């Protein structure tokens, strides 16, 4: 069974979202998602200053199998991309909720995080996929 940390929020497209003390959000893809995609070989991270609307293609993760879009969970502006992924995309496999983070975003709405799906709701989505 996939690990689903309860302090994070989620999307139905398998992004996770962490709230940082400075008000930014960190975005990555879940353990479940990396397992479906397989070994990562390339990640395209967004540049600082890029603005996204909720649902925009914000990054691309490419595994041996396929390229997949990472969708922005909120409206906001990118404050940092995880440059370490350029040389070590496999961190998304080995540590999806840690070193495998993809970018940080300053949400337009400070309350955006609270409106996102919690771990229990995300678990239900995964469980229904497994059926």
């Amino acid at each position: 069974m996939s690990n689903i940390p309860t302090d994070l929020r989620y999307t139905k497209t398998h992004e996770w979202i962490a709230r940082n003390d400075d008000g930014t959000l960190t975005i990555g893809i879940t353990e479940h998602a990396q397992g479906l995609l397989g070994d990562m070989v390339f990640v395209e991270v967004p540049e600082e200053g890029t603005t996204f609307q909720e649902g925009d293609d914000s990054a691309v993760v490419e595994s041996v199998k396929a390229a997949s879009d990472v969708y922005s969970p909120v409206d906001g502006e990118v404050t940092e991309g995880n440059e370490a992924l350029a040389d070590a995309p496999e961190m998304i496999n080995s540590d999806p909720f840690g070193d495998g983070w993809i970018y940080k975003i300053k949400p337009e709405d400070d309350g955006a995080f609270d409106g996102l799906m919690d771990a229990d709701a995300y678990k239900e989505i995964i469980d229904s996929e497994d059926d």
Partner: protein
Amino acid sequence: MGKRTPLYDMHVSHGAKMVDFGGWDMPINYGSQIQEHHVVRNDAGMFDVSHMTIVDLNGDKVRDFLRYLLANNVDRLKDKGKALYSCMLTEQGTVIDDLIVYYVDDNFFRMVVNSSTREKDLDWINKQAKDFDITVTVRDELTMIAVQGPNARAKAHRALGEDTAAQVKDTAVFFITFANDNTMGEIAVARTGYTGEDGYEIMLPKEYASTFWAKLAEQEVTPCGLGARDTLRLEAGMNLYGSDMDETTTPLEAALTWTIAWEPADRDFIGRAVLDKQREKGADRKLVGLVLEDKGVLRNHQKVFVDGLEAGEITSGSFSPTVGKAIAFARVTSNIGDTCKVDIRGKQLSAKVVKPPFARSGKSCI
């Protein structure tokens, strides 16, 4: 639910991720496709390839039949047991399938054809075989396990046991040996494969598939999925039917000219007239290798550009674990130079045009 090989339960119990592959439920990987890839380049891996179709051809005129059916010439097979890679063509010279044919005896050849093309292949073979009085027998009671990698043969010998190993261990490269195993009965061991490494493809009665798989596992042969099989064959410069060639392409357009036996010029094989003409005139398109110089991954159907003009598309693309870069086959205009651009999600990235293989016998050739 798809068709299942005799090893289906084995795959699932070993944590394989199963996918649909041409109507078959097959393992794509058992965890990490890249690790499985490296295991085959450096040690020994095994693949369930029992979805492939084994066809036995028997008859006094079987050699004449194959001289007519195949673009490569079975007269190149002088020694019993020797194998030949060939295309089987339409009258238009396009590829129905690619296959391996083994010369077992003067009235007995064995062919292994792809699973995705099974029905049309069998229809075609049966149709052409009528005039030659050939008995066509599909050997669905057999299963096939490929054991590949530098240590594959040694480990397979231990798994087969002393008596059987003694019968097969002197099998030369691209030969097949039939052996009598005390438990399994008649098996066939071919020193062929689809990875660019040494190894065997072992054909055995399907009721022994799981026990033999387990014996290979005891010898630390690592189960590998179709994902690794695809990156291994791509690195080794081997075409995949349906991606790199099909009934819209001739062998000349698919980097398979080497598999056409032009001599003797009076050998009539299906598709010959068209190929002779294309050879004289030169094909407009060819299949080349690409290595991406920028960061990214080459994928099937990405467009290739030269001087801003579309020059073709990728037929098989992936990340190469051995080279550490993205590699591909692309069908392009014949006048392509040493470099090109590939459109990846709207960006034009630089690629080098190379002659495959990209990697063989454990090492990168790039």
